[in-house]
């Protein structure tokens, strides 16, 4: 019956005989897709609220940057470039697809503005676009089958490999491109044989190659090929459209929305409930995510949008050290759950507990909230909020590892995780030889100051970290800052308490601190602890502006108030380790480096993983108490990275990094060959003290001999 179709010379006319079939395919395809998408919307509608409708211009800007501009993709050079080409090709071809779709309606349908010269140029571009996409499919399939990048592998315990599905989708797209090109090639070849005027096909493009191959084909065969190509294109197109919502390629549809609705504020956490204020939280029956429907609609959209590229897990320090956490599978498992419990055919199942079901406790507690996964994700999928929400759920059910219960209890009764007495909070400042040269005011109502130095628990109580506190105080003193501390009135900032899901305890700590800070009368806050910095900046309200000490130092170096003696040790090679909550979460990368580079004679190298790809040291706050299942410590990996970079001094700007890195130096057997120093300690050690000669004889505390209250993890809870 196909024979009857080649007789009319005009393509439009023979197509009209197939009108009903084409229309049926269109109608079926669109109806199926609409139905599937409607079904996929069900969990989103049942999910928790999420407020993502503010700042439309900012969101549009991010769509331009991260969606249209594919901003994150080149971070993985090969895969990124391939994706950009495919994406660009898709955008170009989407327009062509429209013209093909509407072709059936009218033989001479042309998109507005696509006639004449611009039309010719557009045709050339689409020819090349299809060609590029086709070759990208070949390259992508080759990578999957031959080169097998490690990040695509599915680790044991996470189900079967995704290669077959990936290849199937790549083949479908390739078929679509070939069908598209074949249609163009057979049209041109046919018209040419009939002596009609034809536009030139783009040289060396897929349609051009196919046209050359079809040059000697008979006219009837050509029209059959043309018809077949059109049919193949249409069927493949609709099959893909309806198949995509079942797997990783759903991101083609969802990515635009996922990027538009992505979280705007780094370093922040979502509230327990978007629609419940702090005061009314006590009335909320259940906290956090316990069942799938407790996720917000945006988080479910994240699950749909994940392209399974593996970049998150490739950068996840927990994954790298063998903890039972892979951000990629946090998403994939949730998506599988969603598809299983909200099937396209049939009714939604009952919500079952996620932890103990698809997730394990250890998986949820393993995250350090370093943010490496979110930094990397090209689709701006969020992880930290989900982890924290899952933890909120566990806390609410009392399901907390024993190792964390003691510090949480101590935070409740004493305001610090170590169970130390409140009245000893300022003892670090009372060390004899320190106090004689540097008087740290306690802002208890009797004394006032402009600047509050927020010390936080670890720096206040840990013998080793107290040195960071004293160095910070000396620096503030040196630059003439009128500053003081809260002393016994200061509680833990609660940064990790909140990130471990204990929202109520966090709120109590926060409220206490806010009151104490307001009562102190200080107009600005400085801290040397990035975790407190992040808490004060993002988790607290109604407190004065806060700065990290590295920002203060950088400013004073520029202003000429801080000058440095040259580094004496010529063999020292420094490297700067970006603390997660200073770098990734707050974008402070340059200030600490500027300070280091201002020290004469200081040799500095960068680790391969630095700045926004910094590798977490092991986590701060309560993470120091948690006993993870892991093959290796993150810190050990980190000090090895420093050694690889040729450094022998690791500079950091966070007391928790210091705790983890100093520990790791010992564990890695690099003692004597590698040291760690806090930026504040280094500045304190190197800065030129102008006025009083007696001051300069007090170097920063020698740090190595001091004992730490942070017992090695193996000793806790035995």
């Amino acid at each position: 019956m196909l024979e009857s179709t080649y007789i009319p010379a005009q393509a439009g006319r023979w197509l009209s005989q197939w009108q009903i079939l084409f229309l049926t395919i269109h109608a079926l395809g669109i109806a199926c897709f609409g139905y599937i998408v409607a079904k996929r919307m069900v969990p989103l509608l049942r999910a928790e609220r999420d407020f993502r409708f503010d700042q439309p211009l900012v969101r549009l800007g991010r769509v331009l940057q991260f969606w249209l501009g594919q901003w994150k993709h080149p971070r993985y050079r090969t895969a990124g470039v391939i994706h950009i080409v495919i994406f660009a090709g898709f955008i170009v071809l989407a327009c062509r697809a429209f013209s093909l779709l509407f072709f059936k309606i009218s033989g001479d349908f042309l998109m507005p503005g696509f006639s004449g010269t611009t039309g010719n140029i557009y045709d050339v571009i689409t020819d090349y676009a299809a060609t590029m996409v086709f070759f990208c499919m070949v390259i992508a399939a080759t990578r999957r089958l031959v080169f097998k990048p490690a990040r695509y592998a599915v680790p044991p315990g996470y189900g079967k490999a995704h290669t077959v599905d990936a290849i199937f989708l790549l083949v479908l797209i390739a078929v679509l491109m070939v069908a598209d090109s074949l249609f163009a090639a057979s049209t041109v070849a046919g018209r040419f044989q009939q002596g009609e005027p034809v536009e030139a096909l783009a040289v060396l493009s897929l349609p051009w190659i196919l046209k050359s191959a079809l040059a000697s084909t008979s006219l009837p065969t050509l029209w059959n090929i043309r018809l077949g190509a059109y049919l193949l294109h249409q069927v493949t197109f609709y099959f893909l459209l309806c198949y995509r919502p079942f797997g990783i390629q759903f991101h083609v549809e969802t990515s635009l929305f996922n990027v538009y609705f992505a979280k705007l504020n780094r370093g922040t956490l979502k509230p327990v409930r978007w629609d419940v204020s702090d005061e009314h939280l006590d009335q909320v029956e259940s906290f956090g995510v316990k069942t799938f429907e407790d996720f917000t609609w945006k988080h479910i959209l994240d699950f749909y949008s994940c392209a399974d590229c593996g970049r998150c897990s490739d950068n996840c320090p927990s994954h790298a050290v063998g903890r039972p956490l892979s951000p990629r599978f946090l998403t994939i498992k949730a998506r599988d759950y969603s598809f299983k419990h909200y099937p396209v055919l049939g009714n939604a199942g009952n919500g079952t507990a996620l932890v103990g079901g698809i997730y394990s406790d250890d998986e949820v507690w393993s995250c350090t909230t370093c943010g490496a996964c979110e930094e990397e994700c090209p689709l701006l999928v969020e992880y930290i909020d989900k982890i924290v929400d899952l933890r909120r759920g566990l806390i609410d059910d009392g399901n907390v590892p024993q190792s964390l219960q003691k510090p949480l209890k101590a935070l409740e009764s004493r305001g610090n995780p170590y169970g130390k007495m409140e009245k000893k909070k300022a003892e670090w400042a009372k060390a004899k030889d320190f106090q004689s040269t540097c008087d740290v005011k306690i802002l208890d109502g009797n004394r006032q100051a402009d600047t509050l130095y927020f010390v936080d628990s670890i720096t206040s109580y840990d013998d080793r970290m107290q040195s960071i506190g004293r160095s910070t105080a000396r620096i503030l003193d040196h630059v003439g800052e009128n500053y003081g501390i809260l002393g016994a009135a200061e509680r833990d900032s609660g940064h990790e308490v909140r990130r471990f899901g204990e929202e109520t305890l966090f709120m109590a700590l926060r409220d206490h601190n806010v009151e104490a800070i307001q009562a102190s009368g200080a107009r600005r806050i400085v801290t040397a602890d990035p975790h407190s910095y992040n808490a004060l900046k993002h988790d607290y309200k109604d407190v004065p502006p806060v700065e990290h000490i590295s920002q203060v130092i950088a400013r004073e170096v520029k202003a000429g108030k801080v000058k440095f003696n040259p580094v004496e040790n010529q063999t020292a090679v420094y490297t700067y380790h970006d603390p997660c909550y200073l770098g990734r979460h707050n974008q402070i990368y340059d200030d600490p480096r500027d300070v280091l580079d201002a020290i004469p004679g200081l040799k500095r190298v960068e680790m391969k993983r630095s700045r926004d790809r910094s590798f977490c040291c092991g986590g701060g706050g309560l993470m120091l108490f948690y006993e993870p299942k892991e093959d290796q410590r993150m810190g050990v990996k980190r000090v090895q990275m420093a050694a690889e970079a040729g450094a022998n001094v690791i500079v950091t700007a966070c007391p928790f990094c210091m705790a983890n890195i100093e520990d790791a130096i010992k564990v890695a057997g690099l003692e004597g060959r590698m040291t760690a120093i806090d930026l504040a300690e280094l500045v304190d050690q190197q800065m030129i003290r102008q006025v009083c000669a007696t001051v300069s004889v007090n170097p920063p505390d020698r740090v190595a001999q001091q004992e730490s209250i942070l017992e090695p993890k193996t000793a806790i809870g035995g």
Partner: protein
Amino acid sequence: MEILVCARRVPDTSENEIALNSAGNDIERDDLVYSINEWDNYAVEEALQIVARIGGTVTVVTVGNDDDEEVLRREMAMGANHGVLISDPAFDGSDAKGIATILKTFIQKGRYDLILTGVQAEDGGAQVGGMLAALLDYPFASLVNSLEVLDGGKLKISREIEGGNKEINEIDLPCVLSIQTGINEPRYVGMRGIRQVASVPIPTFNASSLGIDPSNVGEAAARVKRVDYFVPALGKGAQMLEGSREENIDKLVELVAAKGGLK
């Protein structure tokens, strides 16, 4: 199963720096923070797990004063159905037998199948459980570190004995058990949970409502009296090994072996 857990509020040893007062007859109690006695917390968790398996209720009782309500609320936040405070100035200064007498009277006013105590209190002497069982004339097992409910009003329990070994026993209900730490992993109780039970009324009993003759309890009846507190003097400093890591390891092994630590 109706389970009663006898609990107690004690100064938290991990969050206090315990020091003697100037008179030397008590510890310095300003600035102390208190929590539930650790063993009692395990007992409550065990009770909750039993009830989760076979049904019933858990009641937590403490002999103390208004401040002690906080531990009752904590255990109620954990899941205990009822908290009961037994409080009377006449009870002050009771020795272990006095406390056991008070508890016995309370228990006899209700119907409990199983009574759990902690093995000991952080500031106590591991006496109340046994005395209570004797006063009630119930069977008693101490140092219980696993528990299984059998048919026919019996429990199968294991007791921790020296060297980490276990002794398995069968015991008839009703009985008194003292629960050892490690029998389970007590669930976490956060501030939110405590707040949610903040307004639940806690029944309070005193000597007259229980019908206790004040002369049988309290300081006057106590036949064991605290006369002093003693903090042992610090011993000599640790022995520091000097040398390379390998040498130190060899020396350490040698020393530990010499003291009988290695076989």
